[in-house]
């Protein structure tokens, strides 16, 4: 079974599909855990790491060495997890952290704005239509800027993912089955050789982290 990363363009669908996949395939579903591991490695709080990785630096701030450190730690933590066992990851920057490595299925979930607004209102009863829309646009803008800055890429570019699934007409369970089917293809098999590559990648990330210094 490969490692599956889910990039969330929906605010709500990503977690549900990741949970469904983990249950269907009998593997752990991780997001926060990887972040916590990275925080431990950096001797920082989980909140700090999340903030550094979710909020892009201000317009005039340069991309700090700080942010690179957080990203390398997250990358190392995820690759280490993947080297030792199967997993579904639906946390930050999944599509980039393991880019170019074999045995990784990269999926992205998207949904039209009206669907996302409705889902957000259902999840937080107090939210108004306007507030929900504003919140979604705000989160999208941050994510977009962040990906542009760190990777020089457009988060929506389907070329970054093996499959982009639109939840407008496709049910969550269907999205889950589609990704599971892809994960079953021999091309994505995560064997010993692939796991060794993941372990080596984790070691390289740690080394780069050490070179950047604290």
């Amino acid at each position, binding site marked *: 079974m490969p490692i599956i990363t889910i990039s969330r363009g929906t605010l709500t669908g990503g977690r549900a599909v990741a949970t469904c996949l983990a249950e269907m395939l009998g593997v752990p579903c991780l997001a926060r855990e990887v972040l916590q591991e990275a925080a431990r490695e950096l001797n920082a709080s989980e909140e700090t790491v999340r903030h550094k990785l979710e909020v892009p630096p201000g317009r005039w701030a340069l991309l700090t060495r700080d942010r690179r450190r957080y990203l390398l730690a997250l990358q190392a933590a995820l690759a280490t997890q993947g080297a030792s066992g199967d997993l579904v990851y639906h946390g930050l920057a999944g599509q980039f952290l393991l880019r170019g490595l074999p045995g990784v299925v990269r999926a992205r979930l*998207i949904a039209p704005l009206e669907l996302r607004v409705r889902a957000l209102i259902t999840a937080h009863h107090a939210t108004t239509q306007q507030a929900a829309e504003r919140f979604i646009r705000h989160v999208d803008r941050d994510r977009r800027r962040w990906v542009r800055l760190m990777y020089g890429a457009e988060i929506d570019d389907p070329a970054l993912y093996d499959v982009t699934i639109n939840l407008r007409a*496709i049910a969550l369970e269907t999205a889950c089955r589609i990704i599971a089917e892809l994960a079953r293809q021999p091309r994505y098999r995560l064997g010993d050789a692939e796991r060794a590559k993941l372990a080596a990648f984790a070691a390289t990330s740690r080394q780069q982290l050490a070179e950047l210094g604290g």
Partner: protein
Amino acid sequence: MAIITICRGTRSGGEALAACVAERLGWPALGREALQLAAAEVGVTEEQLVQKMQEAPRLWDRHMVARRAYVVALQAALAERVAEGDLVYHGVAGQLLLRGLPAVLRVRLIAPLQTRVRAVMERDGLGRDAAARHIARQDASRARWVRMMYGEDIADPQLYDLVVSLETMDVRDACALLEAALRQPDFDLTPAVLARLAEFRLACRVRFALVRDGETRAHNLEVEAHGTTIEVSGSAPLLTSGRTGERIAAVARAVPGVESVRLKLQWFDPYP
């Protein structure tokens, strides 16, 4: 089961993917043949039709009416096949021609540029630069067409249910993925879905009749079917003779299967 449309750029593996899905599910595949059917209906050659549809429209486009007639003819040809259920369509603009219909899986296939360039070099015996230029030209022309006819960006993932990238997977993997998707209950052809597809076919037949009629073809009309009732909306010139509305209703009523016609037209004064 269902209907699947596959949109892709030149030499992205779309034909092979369509053939694979069709074989696995035992469904018919339809690509260029849809254009041939449409061309025969409007009495032009397939080349003329393709040329008109793919050439970039200009800002002031005197061929707009003819172009719309071709799109309507193509949509009508497609609707006839779609209403029968179970179809793999890999011709132009499937995601837009069948927009809003249930049980249609709209797929866009993308492939890395190097792979496509290599495919064109092999097929056409072109050099690398010439092949890349050919692809860029074709992609730009399709994108312009979709923007002009539908005001949409052909690469926008929101236009599709699935976007599949052939960077890591090959056509067989993609085929397995699409088959798994199409076997899900989301795409069941229930009686309600079949009824909706039949309404779509009826609406397409009426729209096609309206663009073939000399008096109604110039008007940009929307047609919807509710059961056997046809609703025509859009704008039409208010003439003192009052004939336009009557003519539209008569053309629509003459289409087999239509029982009643409702007009919801916005009238405008052609000589203000």
